[in-house]
């Protein structure tokens, strides 16, 4: 077993790198085939032709495409993502600085959404056929259908601009200084800033685990071991928690990868609504400013993040459910 699991892991890792390589190649082609000079954001109107030529040469843009591609692959693999045109700083530094903000927002939202979603889903299954259900289900569907950035805008208008309970932008108050990253991320000020974006992302993500948990519960409730527990005269709450919920939970975990996918798109827009300095906001600003190296770097890191999280979800699933063998997956 350990041997096959190592092999499975190695295979998944190889597949992951392959997908990443294909994405990097597509990205390279997109940015090189963009109409116009990629340095347009860099070049001032006062530049002379020689200065322009020197600049193009220094970026290696006068080399043949295949050479540029090889250089791009070599440098990306080494973690060198070039220099941002608009920030005049190394791309790697810019993306690594914003990565923790994105990760904190995303992971905390995914965890809260799963906890809230499964509990509410089980509750709604339990309340089947009651008024709670006939109000709850349309409400859940409505929240799921609402554009996440619009929900964020409303929260911002109500709780930030009208009631002034929460700040409207950033991760910490302007001018605040912290000794370390960890201190910053755990400071009350940071959590205060995190609240509204977190609520928005949780509302956006909770629908899927909730609806899945509910339908699984309804399925499980009719299985023999639940009927058996009922016949034994166990209290309803005990049946619900100890028997039904436990078994209904596992398929919800499989939705983890799907939710990660949603959360990456959701993150991009929500970071922009709340001016949250994360990777998504960086990407949008880079694309808007035609800052290709930065857009490329931010996109690659977002893609890598989503692929790694998918792998982790897979590992977690095989670990949680011993029936799934590594070899079969």
């Amino acid at each position, binding site marked *: 077993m350990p041997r096959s699991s190592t092999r499975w892991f190695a295979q998944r890792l190889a597949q992951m790198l392959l997908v990443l390589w294909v994405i990097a190649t597509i*990205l390279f082609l997109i940015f090189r085939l963009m109409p116009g000079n990629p340095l347009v954001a860099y070049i001032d109107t006062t530049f002379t032709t020689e200065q322009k030529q020197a600049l193009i040469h220094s970026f290696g843009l006068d080399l043949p495409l295949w050479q540029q591609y090889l250089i791009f692959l070599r440098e990306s693999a080494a973690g060198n993502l070039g220099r941002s045109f608009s920030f005049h700083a190394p791309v790697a530094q810019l993306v690594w600085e914003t990565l923790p903000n994105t990760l904190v927002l995303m992971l905390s939202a995914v965890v809260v959404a799963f906890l809230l979603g499964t509990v509410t889903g089980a509750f709604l299954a339990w309340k089947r056929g009651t008024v709670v259900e006939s109000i709850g289900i349309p409400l859940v569907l*409505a929240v799921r*259908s609402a554009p996440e950035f*619009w*929900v964020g*805008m409303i929260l911002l208008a109500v709780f930030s601009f009208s009631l002034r309970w929460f700040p409207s932008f950033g991760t910490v108050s302007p001018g605040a200084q912290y000794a370390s990253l960890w201190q910053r991320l755990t400071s009350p000020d940071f959590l205060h800033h995190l609240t509204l974006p977190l609520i928005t992302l949780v509302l956006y993500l909770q629908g899927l685990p909730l609806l899945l948990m509910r339908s699984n519960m309804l399925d499980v409730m009719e299985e023999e071991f639940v009927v058996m527990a009922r016949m034994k005269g166990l209290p309803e709450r005990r049946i619900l928690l100890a028997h039904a919920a436990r078994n209904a939970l596992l398929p919800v975990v499989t939705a983890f990868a799907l939710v990660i996918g949603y959360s*990456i798109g959701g993150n*991009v827009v929500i970071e922009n609504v709340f001016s949250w300095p994360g990777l998504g906001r960086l990407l949008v600003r880079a694309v808007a400013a035609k800052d290709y190296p930065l857009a490329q770097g931010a996109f690659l890191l977002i893609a890598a993040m989503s692929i790694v999280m998918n792998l982790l979800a897979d590992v977690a699933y095989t670990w949680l459910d011993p029936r799934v063998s590594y070899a079969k997956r």
Partner: protein
Amino acid sequence: MRSGSVEALPRPHALGAASWRRAWESFWGVLRHDRFAFVGICIYGLFILVALAAPLIAPYDPQQTIMKGDELMANQPPGPPFPLGTTNVGRDIFSQLAFGTRPAFTVGFSAAFFVALIGTVAGIVAGFYGGWADAVLMRLADVAFGIPFLPFVIVLVAFLGPSLWNIVLTMALLLWKDTARVVRAQVLSLRERGFVESARVLGASPARLMLVHIAPNVLPIALLYGSLAIGWAILTEAAVSFLGFGDPARISWGYMLNDAYISQALSTGAYNWFVPPGICIMLVVMAGYFISRGYEELLFPRLRRQ
């Protein structure tokens, strides 16, 4: 003698094969009997009516900055001349909302059509032929799965230029994979079924097998994924427009939200400006869920008793 033996073979229909007509009938059946699906269709119908009659319903040109004498009618509250008030540059919000149905449905339906079409064709070809066609298509689906959807749409739309059709194109490029996967799985089992086998024995060409015998059977599932894609497409267009990469020539709901956001409507509390477009998006997407829910019951009858 010969014709007799052919007649003795069970007719394809008796073996549960669907024809195009039957697929259509079951499609209508769901709409007629499912309460949710019916509500969904009504919402769609209403919005499509608004989209068609937008010039009649909207009191103003959505782009027009309205003047009253020398005075710009900016930031007007909702009231008689302006049902939902005006924007900070004096545009009528209600008129923008009415015209906003057009890009929403254009994107929604065309993206759903291409997603369902590409996904179904790829799924049928991969499932029917197997071998290298299957391998190539499924590896492509793997890559499409690894690409983060919204960031890719943003990058590609910025590259191709901000237009509605480029948004549709990028969605079709990435979303076909889900439909293709389920259709392929369905085709793999259909391929071995009796009615396909008997058609093959009778000398039906691969094209005929796929088009006449297999396609109608995967139609319901393609429609389900298509109807889900409508909502996705409308949400994606809204998000892309909100982020400022939308088609500047058309006023969409996402554009309105972007306009309200960058014009400080949140801090001035202009709820009449940014609440209605969101409600419209929500209603249309929800209608899509309601309709697809009806189909899920058709496809997975086990759900019906719940």
